[in-house]
């Protein structure tokens, strides 16, 4: 299972990366894309939308099912990855390169409440 150690994770299988510019990039884990199968559609949030931690804000659809994506921390959506929306299979190809959206977090320290790679590996192993 590919779980980079420099990322934070949510139990609901999103990854989050806090960059130097203070923005949080969000995607789904390799484990999640594997479980979903061939991804064919991404519904991304509106830029400018304010989200709470744990709020549904995107949908990833594979051939077999639609899956809700939750904001790992509270904040404002400041960018979405249109290139990934135009080529949804890129999430299958590299789930950590094909990010979904970027958040300006209300409080960057909220990321500390997410899982590290070792803790997420346990969650992923359970299903």
């Amino acid at each position: 299972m590919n779980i980079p150690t420099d990322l934070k994770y949510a139990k609901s299988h999103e990854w989050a990366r806090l960059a130097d510019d203070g923005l949080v990039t969000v995607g789904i884990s390799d484990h999640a894309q594997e479980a979903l199968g061939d991804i064919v559609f991404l519904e991304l949030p509106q830029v400018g939308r304010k989200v709470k931690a744990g709020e549904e804000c995107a949908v990833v659809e594979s051939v077999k099912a639609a899956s809700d994506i939750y904001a790992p921390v509270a904040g404002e959506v400041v960018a979405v990855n249109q290139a990934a929306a135009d080529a949804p299979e890129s999430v299958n190809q590299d789930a950590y390169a094909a990010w979904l959206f970027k958040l300006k977090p209300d409080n960057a320290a909220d990321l500390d409440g997410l899982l590290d790679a070792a803790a997420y590996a346990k969650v992923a192993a359970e299903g």
Partner: protein
Amino acid sequence: MAKQTPLYATHVRLGGKLVDFAGWDMPLHYGSQVEEHHQVRRDAGMFDVSHMLAIDLEGEGSRDLLHKLIANNVDKLTLPGRALYSCMLNPKGGVIDDLIVYFFRPDFYRVVVNAGTADKDLAWIAQHAGGALAGPPQESAANDKGRAQPANGHHPLPREGGRGEGRPVTVKPRRDLAMIAVQGPNARAKTWAALPGAEATSSGLKPFHAAWFGEALIARTGYTGEDGFELMIPAERAEATWDALLASSVKPAGLGARDTLRLEAGMALYGQDMDEQTSPLEAGLAWTVDLAAPRDFIGKSVLAGRRPDKQTLGLLLEDRGVLRAHQKVFCAQGEGEITSGTFSPSMSRSIALARLPAGVAVGDTVDVEIRDKRLKATVVKPPFVRNGKVLV
């Protein structure tokens, strides 16, 4: 504990992602269901469909029994090996199951039914054959050692007075068989390459015809909209047959690809596109219902006396997104509902079968409610794709 087909160990060996399907451990895919889909449309793929049940009907009352039990007319079957698709209806005209019946002799037919309905179908058929089935319900063909269990023996059913036909029919469930569907434009040639001697017996088969190949039956049927065969073989030969097909470059495909292929082909899925509450006339299956012949069949009087107020048609999503079962469809004539929806790998867009109000016509634009949005879809006549070509 889910049941396993004689090919269970083979699926595990090949890295299949196994899921529960109608109580069976079945492969959803072996890596990518989209690639498996394309493999079938472009070349040749194979599916383990051993979870479906073959039921042999033997005895001189077999034809009369099928006259009564199924909505299509077995009198269309005159050549040995000829196959017919039909619904089996309840007295209210709802669909108990859809099936394929193969004719061999007027006193010998084989019916192949869905996995999820097999026990119910068997009981229904046995009841109308004039008696109850003896013995316990059928178990999986493979036990935990992967070896075939002996077939349940014949169930001679007693002559039953008062039903009119009264001639004996033996109802024989064939859990001793495995079934492999080899599908795709190159499926037949690759099957012949894999199974020495098969070509001689099956090269002359037209679609919906079958021939014996020793104990095996080779049928030119399928559920993908492509050419190919369905092979019914003794369970103990399943793995060797599968491996021979693999060696002749037929790739394994799972239930995921089977679903997108059948939906593109406009083929109904029991339990999703129709069920016991659905008339075949509303499910797009009027072509399989023989109301013209004088023979009576269960459900006929209800269907004959009713003009359906719903119809099943195809939808093509014009916007981006994915149509799914149970989404609401808004038409000028009222509301409808999607019964099966997916992303079509062949068309790279979303397609669906939908139950729509009578009066909606091909070419109409309708709205589909997907989460909090209403998206535009065009009404089309299925199939969407057949024999590798997009038709809509």
